[in-house]
């Protein structure tokens, strides 16, 4: 067990991933590092703030204490987002008032003590109760019944409680009749969106704890999240987002490597590393089969050459499992191009079962030696059948194929990147952009997110998705603009924006999967990348 002064402990390593168990009573709720991380919008994996919306609102709202985080948990709920007042949502009202862009006003001065913490906006159900108590003299139990009755939305019941509320405000004499009616209607409307404060606070507490873990123990945090990403609705997208987020925090998620023999994500050499069953097409039983063989024979994988590996283990794995290992990079430690491994394995697969057994039993140094031995020592001692000549041709063909491969077996970055995308959900060791001349770029996605400043920013990227949007307000109303999701090897930008004046001329170039050099500037308000120009990159290979 590892204990930290900050009030956290990590206990029992579960498959290499320590479990985070904070001492709830000791943990500091004032850690500036944690609050800064939340306020910067880096909340991927943080409880309730994991979504794009949560990340964006965290940045806009910028909470720095528990009450503010609780407010954030309440205002990002759909009810609050959908409640439009004076042309904008209550969420936006809250943010604008918090940052002093809008004036904080109250319907009546008597409401100020109750609504001060939420800048005059009724965010919580408890605030409705407080209003009923302070301006109509309800006790809190009566106020809760009033709130519930309003929530039922039954006309007769509503009329009854409204009359009762107005009578009580008249008796209490803090607000007049008109103000009382307006406050009642306000409470009525708030029932659609207001949130229970104790619930919100407990969300905030859990959110803070996860953010604390992320801020202070990011490697364990990401390893754990990656490990459990399989349970998400869209596991591939989740893994991609987590890997990109980890890159932002200077953590490189490493591809799988067979010698570590880890089943799932695990911290290896200070980095989260893919496990073998995280490779698409490699199931638990398939991996166990290989693992048992390696343990039984006490193979030291680090000492194997590729040829030895192929001959010793090739027949103990299913085709898709073996190919998955190669294409995901789990055998890269053998220092042989992935193309060459796939090529050799395809030759090996065509051999008869007893030929593969022969190759495994005899300790040949190279695959070629093994095939030569089959031709010289094994086949002459076999009973000749109608098929013998066919197999002699096959082995001779394999020798020719090993000597003179019909195509280049060098790994191109675009091919490797595609395979990694298919087998690991994300490109880890290279990207397609590596094949292009990117000398004109002056910034990467990661540098942009980290605040790269220049009057003209040029980033070499791959377009992942394009979302066209019709402008609804302003002088360009009705025209089209677009939001791009782009990435390079360092990270991804989800908020590249092409305004309508540029979109018309760039839409022929800005196509999904294209590799481009985007030129533009930073939108200082939103922090997004404003695309002004785009050009195709030229191949460097």
């Amino acid at each position: 067990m590892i204990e930290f002064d900050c009030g956290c402990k990590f206990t029992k390593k579960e498959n290499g991933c320590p479990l985070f168990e904070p001492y709830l009573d000791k943990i500091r709720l004032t850690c500036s590092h944690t609050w800064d991380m939340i306020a910067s919008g880096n909340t991927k994996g943080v409880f309730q703030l994991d979504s794009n919306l949560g990340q964006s609102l965290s940045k806009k709202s910028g909470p720095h204490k528990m009450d503010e985080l609780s407010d954030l948990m309440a205002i990002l709920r759909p009810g609050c987002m959908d409640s439009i007042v004076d042309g904008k949502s209550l969420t936006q009202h809250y943010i604008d008032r918090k940052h002093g862009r809008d004036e904080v006003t109250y319907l009546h001065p008597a409401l100020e003590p109750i609504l001060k913490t939420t800048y005059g906006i009724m965010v919580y159900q408890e605030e409705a109760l407080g209003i009923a108590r302070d301006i109509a003299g309800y006790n809190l139990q009566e106020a809760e019944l009033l709130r519930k009755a309003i929530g039922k939305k039954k006309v007769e019941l509503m009329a009854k409680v409204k009359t009762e509320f107005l009578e009580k405000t008249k008796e209490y004499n803090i607000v007049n009749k008109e103000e009382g009616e307006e406050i009642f209607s306000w409470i009525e409307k708030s029932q659609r969106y207001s949130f229970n404060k104790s619930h919100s606070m407990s969300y905030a507490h859990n959110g803070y704890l996860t953010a604390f873990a992320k801020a202070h123990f990011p490697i364990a945090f990401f390893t754990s999240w990656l490990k459990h990403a399989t349970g998400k609705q869209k596991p591939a997208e989740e893994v991609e987002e987590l890997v990109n987020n980890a890159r932002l925090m200077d953590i490189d998620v490493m591809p799988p490597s067979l010698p570590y023999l880890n089943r799932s994500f695990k911290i290896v050499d200070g980095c989260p590393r893919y496990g073998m069953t995280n490779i698409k097409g490699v199931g638990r039983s398939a991996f166990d089969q290989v693992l048992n063989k390696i343990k039984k024979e006490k193979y030291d994988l680090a000492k194997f050459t590729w040829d030895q590996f192929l001959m010793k283990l090739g027949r103990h794995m299913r085709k898709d499992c073996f190919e998955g290992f190669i294409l995901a990079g789990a055998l890269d430690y053998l220092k042989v191009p992935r193309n060459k491994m796939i090529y050799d394995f395809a030759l090996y697969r065509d051999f008869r079962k007893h030929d593969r057994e022969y190759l495994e039993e005899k300790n040949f140094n190279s695959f070629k030696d093994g095939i030569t031995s089959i031709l010289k020592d094994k086949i002459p001692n076999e009973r000749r059948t109608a098929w013998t000549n066919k197999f002699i041709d096959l082995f001779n063909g394999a020798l020719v194929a090993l000597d003179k491969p019909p195509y280049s077996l060098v790994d191109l970055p675009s091919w490797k990147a595609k395979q990694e995308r298919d087998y690991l959900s994300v490109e880890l060791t290279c990207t397609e952009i590596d094949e292009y001349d990117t000398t004109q770029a002056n910034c990467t996605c990661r540098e942009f997110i980290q605040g790269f400043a220049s009057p003209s920013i040029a980033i070499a990227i791959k377009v992942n998705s394009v979302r066209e949007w019709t402008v609804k307000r302003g002088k360009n109303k009705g025209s089209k603009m677009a939001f791009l999701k782009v990435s390079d090897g360092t990270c991804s930008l989800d908020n590249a924006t092409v305004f309508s004046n540029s979109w018309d001329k760039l839409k022929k170039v800005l196509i999904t999967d294209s590799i481009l050099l985007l030129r533009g500037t930073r939108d200082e308000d939103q922090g997004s990348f404003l695309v002004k120009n785009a050009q195709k990159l030229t191949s460097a290979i």
Partner: protein
Amino acid sequence: MINTRWYLCFDFETDGKKPEECNPVELAAVPINPETLEIKKSHAFNTIIRPPGIDTEEYFDPERIKTIEWHASHAGCTYEEIVEKWKDGMDQKTAWKNFCAYCKKYMVDKKPGQWFPQPIPVGYNIIGYDLLIARRLAKAHKTGFPMGEVNKIDIYDMLFSWMENLYEPFDLKMDTLRQWLGLTSEGQAHSALADVFEEAEIFVRFMKFQRKQSSVEKFKGAFSR
């Protein structure tokens, strides 16, 4: 529509004239980038294929002998050298499977509007000849067809549509075209790889020409009254 599928220009050299019976003796292919139309010569495929039964006397029937002599005369070598070259080739199954693995490298991701990820076969007279052989090999070795079945570009047909009303060239044989278009061959004519490079050059030149000619404005509403 923006095509993102790779073009794969390929060519077989065979030991006979009939695509239903002949054995392929050489297979070459070169990928062409669909966006830039760049011919990726450094990523070409080329292999000599050992025809089944070449060690037996029955293999050398009069028809085959004529074909071997024809290959020898074009390659500028002897009959025996051609036979030796073929004998040293890869067995048919290994060669074909290698080709299938090679084609797989040029498959794109499936996505809405892009249901066929395989590379688009391109070549000279492929519809009537090379594709028939390729299908036969896919069936014999149970591999599935490695290239696109729906879209295919036969350069012979492509050129026919551009030249069917011109006095020149006299015919559309590859040898005639080579001379008429002024192609400077990088290798020996009727070696599969050299042929494939030339065919790819012709294909790319005409595709660029077509791309220049076509535009949305020219086609859109062309039939509206």
